[in-house]
């Protein structure tokens, strides 16, 4: 009969709030919610494209003029993104290593597919964010956008968006990215309430429904723009290119 020697117990002092498993979850929940609010704001900003070129370009110029606010938001988003992605990856590997020998038969009883694919949908969103910044914010991938100006001499965001999404590949990648984001949210939103301790048996299924509703709103709210451009509901203004 073999015996297992009791391991010496390491000091508990090493575990602080931030390094504890619950602390990390809370950070994920908080950084995730801040980025979610940004996404909602971004969506409302984007939807002004339906009002017209003048409205969208005025809005874009107004954001640029509020540079202190714009850069503060960008800074907070950058910090949130770094923490959320870094800890997401770290948690993924910690969780993988906490079961060094895997099961031969794996059966899932009730964990949703979205909960089991968070690292992949999250990774997809991250890669898209990098591309999106290079595409529209820093204008690296399509430098010709930098020369677009409207009749008032403002940067012509409207034409830039229309030109971008007239490309079927860019729109397809966008649809996939928005699907990843929405699918990520179907688990993220109910999880947020659970992690912050605002959940019980009565609210659990309600938060799951809320997650799906929010995900659908986000998916439609973003995807409707490239869809409208591809369907030629939104077109380039006269005289551009």
């Amino acid at each position: 009969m073999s015996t297992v020697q009791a391991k010496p117990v390491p000091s508990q002092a090493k575990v602080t709030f931030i390094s504890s498993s619950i602390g990390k979850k809370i950070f994920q929940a908080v950084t995730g919610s801040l980025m979610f609010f940004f996404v909602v704001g971004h969506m409302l900003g984007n939807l002004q494209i339906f009002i017209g070129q003048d409205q969208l370009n005025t809005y874009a110029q107004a954001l640029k003029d509020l540079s202190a606010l714009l850069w503060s938001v960008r800074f907070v988003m950058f910090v949130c993104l770094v923490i959320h992605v870094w800890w997401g990856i770290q948690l993924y590997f910690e969780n993988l290593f906490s079961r060094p020998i895997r099961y031969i038969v794996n059966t899932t009883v009730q964990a949703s597919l979205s909960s089991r694919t968070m690292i992949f949908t999250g990774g997809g969103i991250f890669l898209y964010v990098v591309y999106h910044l290079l595409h529209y914010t820093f204008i690296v991938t399509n430098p010709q956008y930098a020369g677009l100006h409207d009749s008032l001499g403002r940067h012509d965001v409207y034409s830039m968006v229309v030109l971008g999404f007239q490309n079927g590949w860019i729109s397809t990648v966008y649809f996939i990215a928005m699907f990843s984001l929405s699918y990520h949210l179907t688990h993220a939103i109910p999880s947020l309430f659970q992690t912050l301790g605002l959940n019980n048996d009565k609210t659990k299924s309600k938060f799951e429904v809320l997650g799906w509703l929010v995900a659908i709103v986000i998916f439609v709210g973003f995807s409707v723009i490239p869809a409208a451009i591809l369907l030629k509901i939104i077109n380039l203004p006269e005289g551009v290119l």
Partner: protein
Amino acid sequence: MNLTLRVWRQKNSQDKGHLEIYQANDINEDMSFLEMLDVVNEDLIKKDIEPIHFDHDCREGICGACSLVINGIPHGGKKGCTTCELRMRNFKDGDTITIEPFRAKAFPVIRDLMVDRSSLDRVMQAGGFVSVNTGGVPDANAIPIHKEISDKAMDAAACIGCGACVAACPNASAMLFVSAKVSHLATLPQGKVEREQRVRKMVAQMDIEGFGNCTNYYECEAVCPKEISVKSIAMMNREYMRALVK
């Protein structure tokens, strides 16, 4: 009924281990899963083969000793049942059943299907004591506790510490176990004296033991033989934040 068993065999904690195939013949469908294994073991002993080692004790679903991951589900997937309560009538004649030990870094295999779950005991020890007033024995109804509160505490106290939540969690997290213990005591007036240090220490010990992190899969709740709800985990998260600002 006749069954084919694929059973994890492992000589000791250092051995690599492998699956062996055994036949279980003439099994009575009213037997429990452990009684079926007893029959298989009788047969193995007669053939001069080392019997299959597995944990068991009370065999009435209250001690938390039995374990086993049966076809990928801890305790076999019958709602609210431990392995010892699982009857063979839940299987069909001719079925192939795969039996593995609970798998987690914090649960090293001792032999075959037996695992060392003392990490859970160390989490309990870390929780420390509950203050009790000295003096005469208090009257049973001296501390008024609302029925709903005592029910809530009892729901959490139903945890038998079997570790199925850890075995089922894709992250091998022990959050359901630890949260059941934390919320059981934090709900009752007797446990409130040390509630902050209890949650802090139990969570720290849980992390040290090498359990994974909870990502809200809720697989734990689905396999828990005592049907403990993940609302306990939400409560522990609350308790932990409360302890931080206290």
